[in-house]
């Protein structure tokens, strides 16, 4: 950018944005005005004193997905949005032009939307107290689809919107800003039309999906940001939405990601192992470590423990036990008796009794106990994660991402479980063949009368279960 092209620059404290724009409009200037404040930058393209383009930069989350939002308010169907999305590659002006071209939006609406976006950005920039500006002539934006806008009328509307924002701040709606992201409370699943909300409120509620900032909601609904803030404040009062704390969720996501990485690392040496004595304890260690990691995580991030300041470890332990002790006991009682040996100690699941079973039993019997523990802990792990995720982030953007990563992690565990099942099945088949001629391996109780009856192996018929000489599979239960 040539130095001589910059014909005006200065401090916003000396000359406000309103005065700069009026001055440039009155003198009919052509060029680009850059206004910087902190990380944010606004560039306004002027042609003969009229606004022809505007671009806002600074906060990554202020790059709204216009098509996605139009789908959420039922202005566009998903296939239509997908068709435009691929070609427009996020260019907002191009998206609008393509919608007009395909007859999915009127030309008038496109102009209104472009004008609203300009007004909204200028209204926001008018509130900047500190910053710098610079005007460069000869930098004219080409090919803008927006009709030139009169500076005075844009300023008038932008000032009105800025005043409205000041008013709601005075009223005490201070917790919301234009970057605030809200999302539906996890428990809200009823028909919201029964709550007597206005259409505007319902539209705002539809867009509160935990991904769209307040500014983008205002943009797509073409409502002043202050009015949207007022609606969100009301929805917060009604407990229909909650404000997403991005920093908190990043921390939460990182903590769970680190846990999954750690557990994957524990699992790695056992992957592909075809020796049950090696693989099964490895899986138990991984599952137990993962359950304990999740419990520790939930002790820090559980919704009912948040915002209560420093909590004593006893309180956290009590909370965790109240949440997970009963499901574990139920699981042990109804499906996996081996889990009775796993106890909650200081908010952690102690599986040392299971892992030291090799001191008490050996051979196939040990393998059977390990196998039951793997299945039981696997079920409990899924149960813990499901409850934890629902409580901490619900069906939010972060929640969905974490769920997907979790599924990948589970698929690795399931892969190893399937490998083991395969080895187990192969061995059983081989054993049936060997039964007549060869002695059984260690831990197998020999069949008394010798004659193999493959169709009856392990299918648990009552008379067989009572037979003390039947396979260890059926004996184990009584042990």
């Amino acid at each position: 950018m040539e130095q001589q092209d910059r014909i005006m620059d200065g401090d916003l404290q000396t000359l406000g944005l309103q005065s700069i724009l009026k001055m440039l409009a009155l003198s009919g200037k052509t060029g680009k005005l850059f206004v910087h404040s902190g990380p944010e930058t606004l560039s306004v393209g002027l042609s003969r004193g009229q606004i022809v383009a505007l671009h806002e930069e600074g906060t990554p989350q202020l790059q709204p997905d216009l098509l996605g939002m139009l789908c959420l308010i039922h202005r566009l169907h998903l296939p239509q949005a997908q068709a435009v999305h691929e070609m427009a590659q996020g260019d907002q002006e191009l998206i609008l032009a393509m919608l007009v071209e395909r007859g999915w939006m009127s030309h008038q609406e496109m102009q209104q939307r472009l004008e609203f976006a300009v007004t909204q950005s200028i209204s926001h920039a008018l509130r900047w107290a500190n910053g710098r500006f610079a005007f460069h002539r000869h930098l004219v934006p080409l090919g803008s689809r927006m009709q030139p806008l009169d500076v005075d009328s844009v300023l008038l509307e932008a000032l009105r919107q800025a005043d409205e924002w000041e008013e709601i701040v005075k009223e005490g709606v201070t917790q919301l800003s234009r970057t605030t992201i809200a999302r539906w409370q996890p428990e809200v699943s009823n028909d919201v039309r029964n709550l007597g909300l206005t259409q505007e409120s319902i539209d705002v509620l539809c867009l509160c999906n935990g991904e769209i900032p307040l500014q983008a909601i205002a943009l797509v609904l073409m409502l002043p940001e202050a009015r949207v803030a007022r609606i969100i404040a009301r929805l917060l009062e009604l407990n229909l939405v909650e404000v997403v704390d991005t920093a908190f969720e990043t921390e939460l996501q990182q903590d769970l990601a680190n846990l999954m990485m750690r557990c994957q690392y524990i699992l790695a040496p056992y992957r592909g192992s075809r020796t049950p004595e090696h693989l099964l304890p490895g899986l138990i260690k991984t599952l137990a470590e993962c359950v304990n990691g999740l419990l520790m995580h939930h002790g820090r991030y559980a919704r009912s423990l948040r915002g209560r300041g420093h909590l004593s470890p006893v309180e956290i332990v009590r909370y965790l036990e109240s949440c997970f002790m009963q499901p574990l006991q139920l699981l042990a009682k109804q499906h996996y008796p081996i889990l009775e040996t796993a106890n909650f100690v200081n908010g952690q699941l102690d599986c040392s009794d299971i892992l030291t079973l090799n001191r008490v039993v050996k051979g196939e019997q040990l393998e059977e106990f390990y196998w039951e523990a793997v299945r039981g802990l696997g079920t409990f792990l899924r149960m813990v994660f499901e409850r934890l995720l629902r409580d901490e982030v619900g069906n939010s953007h972060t929640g969905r991402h974490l769920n997907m990563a979790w599924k990948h992690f589970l698929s690795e565990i399931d892969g190893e479980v399937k490998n083991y099942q395969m080895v187990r099945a192969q061995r059983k088949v081989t054993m049936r063949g060997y039964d007549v001629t060869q002695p059984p391996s260690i831990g197998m109780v020999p069949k008394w009368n010798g004659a193999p009856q493959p169709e009856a192996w392990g299918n648990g018929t009552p008379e067989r279960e009572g037979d003390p000489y039947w396979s260890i599979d059926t004996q184990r239960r009584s042990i």
Partner: protein
Amino acid sequence: MAVPTVLVVDDSPTVRKIVQMTLQREHIRVITAADGLSALTSVADNMPALILLDIQLPRMDGYHICQIIRKNLQFRQIPIIMLSGKDGLFDKMRGRLAGSTEYLTKPFDSAELVRTVKKHLVNWEERMPVQQEGMRPRQRYRG
């Protein structure tokens, strides 16, 4: 400014997904490969700004991939961060000899991963060879 692309090569779907999730939060585009050969194809097709490379991979190990990339004039400038559970001196030396830029020991912390990746993405555009128009994504990156 365009968005940088990071290629993650690891045979574990968990590691691939977690790294992807963590870096996407930082507005970094992530592509993944599960084995050595797909990784090389992906390097040629996508020209990543950085590669996160696991050592133990099916079909071709990480050291070998690293050597191949370093021998290629077009891709030799791409920083390669080796990911491995091995933290022995010998493995680090072997990684260095193969041409890796840095070494991250598993299980790594998400924050550490982001820090390391960002450190090597500074001025990434200057290192990139000239490409055909339209190859780079148009989103914005704030490192």
